């Protein structure tokens, strides 16, 4: 009988399909290998030390809970830019409750995570009920949460927390891993479980893959979107606790670039910004890669501010790479030079050259007519 079987040329999966599942890991793993080789050549003595890998792991651990949740957010075609402010706000509130109101740590820590969940709930409701696009909605709430944190803290640095809180941020389980690393890895494992074995994960993929289809088949799209943002908020709250413990201090301006750092890690790990495709293990690899990269920059004594340049470049390269991989039709392009010769690209090329020329000319003009400097440095 078989209506659709006759044409199947080969049974089972093709090599490409088999590989595709692992691409999420191969990408960051290759970059990690390249980084290790580079460091082996440049600065092996200081980079390849056990104590340095301890630092790398602790740095990475801070981002693991958020990367886990962000993976699910991005799988739904969403984004959350507010996580840094949520982490700062929850850490500030926890700090106040601990220091000024004498809350026990075992109340203050869950409180911070719950507050994070509440912030995530607000984000989710803004996106689903007020229909504000996620990019704008969470960007605006990033400002709002940061503002609230500043209002509460008024520039004060809260420090010297109870030892349990400090242990969450930088404790060490004797003969085993640091406490934050255990917490981070636990959230990744939980995330993997959520992603593959629960309705939340399944519906996240369906919503990101085809929102209309998810709706037609009876998936409560908006409710599950809210759940996803609540999970994201809770993990940002947990990260706030871990950060406060790690530094044993917190202020309203803490955690400035959490959002982009976490998104970079997730995207490097092969999760598609276009929704539907994600990898929890890839996100773990992405977090490790970014931690190793930043550590390498520090080891090489490159100025701190280059970090955000490096993160930005990594995001662009990863997204461009995965988009290129997803391209089904690469025929008839005839290579780079052929692409440059198309009329449309020539026009674009002239335009680029014009802009560059204007910038160069203005610089030249400035130097030509330069007066006395009032010495910035």
């Amino acid at each position: 009988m078989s209506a659709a079987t006759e044409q199947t040329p080969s049974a089972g999966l093709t090599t490409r399909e088999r590989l595709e599942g692992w691409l999420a890991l191969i990408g960051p793993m290759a970059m990690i290998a390249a980084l290790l080789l580079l460091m082996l050549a440049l600065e092996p003595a200081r980079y390849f030390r056990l104590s340095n890998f301890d630092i790398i792991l602790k740095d990475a651990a801070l981002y693991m809970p958020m990367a886990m949740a962000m993976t699910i957010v991005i799988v739904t075609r969403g984004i959350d830019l507010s996580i840094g402010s949520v982490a700062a706000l929850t850490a500030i509130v926890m700090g106040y409750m601990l220091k000024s109101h004498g809350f026990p740590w075992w109340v203050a820590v869950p409180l911070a995570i719950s507050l994070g969940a509440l912030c995530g709930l607000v984000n989710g409701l803004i996106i689903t009920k007020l229909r504000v696009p996620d990019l704008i909605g969470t960007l605006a709430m990033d400002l709002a949460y940061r503002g609230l944190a500043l209002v509460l803290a008024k520039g004060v640095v809260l420090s010297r927390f109870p030892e349990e809180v400090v242990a969450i941020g930088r404790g060490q389980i004797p003969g085993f891993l640091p406490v934050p690393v255990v917490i981070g890895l636990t959230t990744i494992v939980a995330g993997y479980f959520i992603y593959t074995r629960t309705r939340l994960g399944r519906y996240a993929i369906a919503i990101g893959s085809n929102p209309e289809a998810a709706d037609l088949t009876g998936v409560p799209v908006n409710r599950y979107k809210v759940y996803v943002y609540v999970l994201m908020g809770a993990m940002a709250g947990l990260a706030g606790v871990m950060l406060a413990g790690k530094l044993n201090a917190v202020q309203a301006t803490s955690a400035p670039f959490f959002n982009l750092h976490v998104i970079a890690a997730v995207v490097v790990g092969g999760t598609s910004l276009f929704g539907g495709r994600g990898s929890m293990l890839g996100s773990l690899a992405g977090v490790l890669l970014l931690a190793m990269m930043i550590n390498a920059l520090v080891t090489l004594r490159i100025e701190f501010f280059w970090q955000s340049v490096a993160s930005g470049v990594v995001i662009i390269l990863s997204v461009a790479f995965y988009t290129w991989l997803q391209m089904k039709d690469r025929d008839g392009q005839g290579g780079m030079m052929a692409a440059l010769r198309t009329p449309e690209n020539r026009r674009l090329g002239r335009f680029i050259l014009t802009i560059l020329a204007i910038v160069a000319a203005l610089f030249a003009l400035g130097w030509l007519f330069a007066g006395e400097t009032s010495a910035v440095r």
Partner: protein
Amino acid sequence: MTEPTTAAAPLISMRGISKRFGGVTALDGVELDAWAGEVLAIVGDNGAGKSTLIKILTGVFQPTAGAVEMDGAPLAMTSHSDAIAHGIDAVYQTLALADHLTPAANMFLGAELTRRFLGIEILDNARMRAEAERTLRDRLGVTLRSMDVPTESLSGGQRQAVAIARAVYDSKLRVLVMDEPTAALGPRETARTLKLIEAVRDQGLAVIVISHSLDDVFAISDRIQVMRRGKRVGVVRTADTDSKTVLGMIIGAHPTEHAAEHAAEHAA
């Protein structure tokens, strides 16, 4: 072929269906009868009211006047899920598949099979996979080369099979509505899809197919209902007619309407 037009009562009927959207009359007193084990094709030009009619049948729209009856008893439907509860489901033109999910995950999307693990409800992926494989094989005669690939890597006919399997997995399903099942398919995939429709019909379901392709309609249907400007202009038995006659009824070029109505009354 089956003989649906004999003494047996129709499985599903629509009686005097009218639907107005504001001042626009989309449907005007339309009748429809479909028997178990037959394929009824609905044809008509754009705007003839085909889609509105099946949206009423599947509970998406509610009629301004008229009633949907199953086994002679009127059905109260206020939503698509009511229709599914009564055994009426639809396969949409877009198939409503999430391309990144596996065929099994798509088949059970929104109605996952679960089991309990340490007291919490988790997805039973293994059972969903086995059930999906069994449904595709036993009900539709389709074996996918892998159950673990994303649905986007399947051929058009296989994707159609997954969408149909989702509907027929429900053992209560009695009426399957298919909206333009072959619209986006090449000749080979079209042939496979028509075979799937035959397989479903042979299991005793009433299949109602909307199609623009008269070739496909003649290849698969037992009867053809022609719609024009919100009215039923006729129902013909596929074996007793040809595409020229049907085309004439669709565009209203020939005064064959009366004859067609007559034939329809005979048939019903």
